[in-house]
């Protein structure tokens, strides 16, 4: 064997060993709760920095009908198997009612027809999945703000929680693995925050969350809760699910979902 070939082999070997050590170290660090907590601390910094430099009332960009995506990728649950939901779907949601309760003066129970009669907004917006893709869709729905005003928020109200019909993860108990999401009151009262019942000028399809899904523009796709059954106004969400304010936030994703 020539000297160069020998040296090359040695260098390759050293490179591969160093690389594997580096990777193993990164995996071990990822498995360490203390280290990941340190990394997660940057999240608080990101959230606060974003809150500081962004205008929380700014509208998300709206697009023209020509910009609509020919195909809008459905993600997460695309057909809930929950018996309660299957029964509601069989009746075309005639017996579905949206409950709005929790820290409100006058709890509401609205049929789909009643929800459709509420002040509405139509918007063509970009949906950004945390995976990296985007799709543009047209949404029509009842504005959440006026609905909350109708129910009357109690003084200690701070977050709005959306309880969904679909079960995406495994879990114990009736609520285990159930999808849910939450937003703060600034986002709840944002004009583009709607309970959408129409998509691209048609009734909201099951794959996209029929009968009603949340649109909270300016946040990632996993915040756009589908198959909404119940809205609960709370002062804290640490006792719901695993305590992080949503199905995916309970699984390591950011609650504020702004980046």
């Amino acid at each position, binding site marked *: 064997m020539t000297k160069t070939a020998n040296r090359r082999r040695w260098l390759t070997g050293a490179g591969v060993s160093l690389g594997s050590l580096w990777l193993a170290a990164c995996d071990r660090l990822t498995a360490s709760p203390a280290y990941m907590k340190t990394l997660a601390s940057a999240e608080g910094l990101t959230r606060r920095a974003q809150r500081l430099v962004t205008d929380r009332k700014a509208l998300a960009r709206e697009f023209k009908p020509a910009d609509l995506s020919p195909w809008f990728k459905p993600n997460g649950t695309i057909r809930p198997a929950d018996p309660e939901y299957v029964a509601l779907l069989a009746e075309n949601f005639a017996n579905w009612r949206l409950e709005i309760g929790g820290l409100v003066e006058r709890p509401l129970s609205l049929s789909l027809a009643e929800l459709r009669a509420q002040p509405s907004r139509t918007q063509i917006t*970009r949906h950004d999945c*945390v995976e990296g893709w985007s799709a543009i869709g047209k949404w029509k729905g009842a504005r959440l703000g006026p609905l909350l005003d109708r129910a009357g928020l109690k003084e200690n109200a701070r977050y709005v929680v959306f309880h969904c019909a679909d079960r995406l993860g495994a879990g114990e108990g009736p609520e285990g693995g159930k999808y849910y999401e939450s937003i703060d009151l600034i986002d709840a009262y944002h004009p583009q925050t709607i309970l959408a019942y129409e998509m691209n000028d048609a009734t909201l399809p099951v794959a996209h969350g029929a009968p009603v899904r949340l649109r909270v523009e300016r946040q990632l796709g996993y915040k756009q809760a589908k198959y909404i059954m119940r809205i609960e106004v709370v002062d804290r969400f640490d006792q719901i699910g695993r305590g992080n304010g949503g199905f995916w936030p309970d699984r390591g994703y950011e609650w504020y979902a702004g980046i």
Partner: protein
Amino acid sequence: MAEKRRPEKVLVRRHSALTRITHWLNVLAISMLLMSGLQIFNAHPALYWGSASSFDQPWISMSMKEVADTPRGVTTLGPLTFDTTGLFGWSGAPGMQEKRGFPAWATIPSYRSLADGRRWHFFFAWFFVINGLVYLAWGLIGGHIRKDLWPTRDQLSPRHLLHEIATHARLKFPKGEEARRYNALQKLAYLAVILVLLPLMLLTGLTMSPGFDATVPQLLDLFGGRQSARSIHFISASLIVAFVVLHLVMVVVSGLWNNIRSMITGRYAIEVEGDEA
């Protein structure tokens, strides 16, 4: 009879402490950002132009396709298709191959976890931004960029540039007094990375934020939409990798230990004529 002058090695001060510290912190930040970035890319290993994804027409994609009942890694680039089994699309140790864009050895963590990848990425993004701002502030105020990195007029003459390209191609590098400063190709490469590629990474990264977009929609217009920003983020990262590879090659061929010492202790050896030392 003239005495023959013997070249003598002298150590000159090459890099300030701040340059050295920010350089190594940047090595750490860029490595972490690159590898966690590939983890994030793997969540949807395809890139598009414009605002939204045209799912059937990515300009680049990595996927798995079964060919005669055998999974193959397939990478497409425009109209071209490549079999990249073992590298892109389908990779892993024998018996443990899986469908993934970049292979396990290129991502942090090595296994698939978008949530953890994002945690690493955003943590080191702050690290990178703060380190970069310290460097730039000092570089602008202290004159490092103007004095050491900005090419002088004589360095930019076509004649000089052609000469440098020709000598670089033959792996011959400036000696003596000329070695006291960076050569023009070096300066241009450093400036392109420091003032163009690295800031571009930050800006295209922010453009992918739906929250930031609402406040600064001009970024969307600047880059041509969120999916374009994602593509430019990827291309810019690839150019940084290309720079790092070239940088490392140059470090090796132009005097490995001298270069490494200069970035650790700050001292760089140059050869000067005997009686001048």
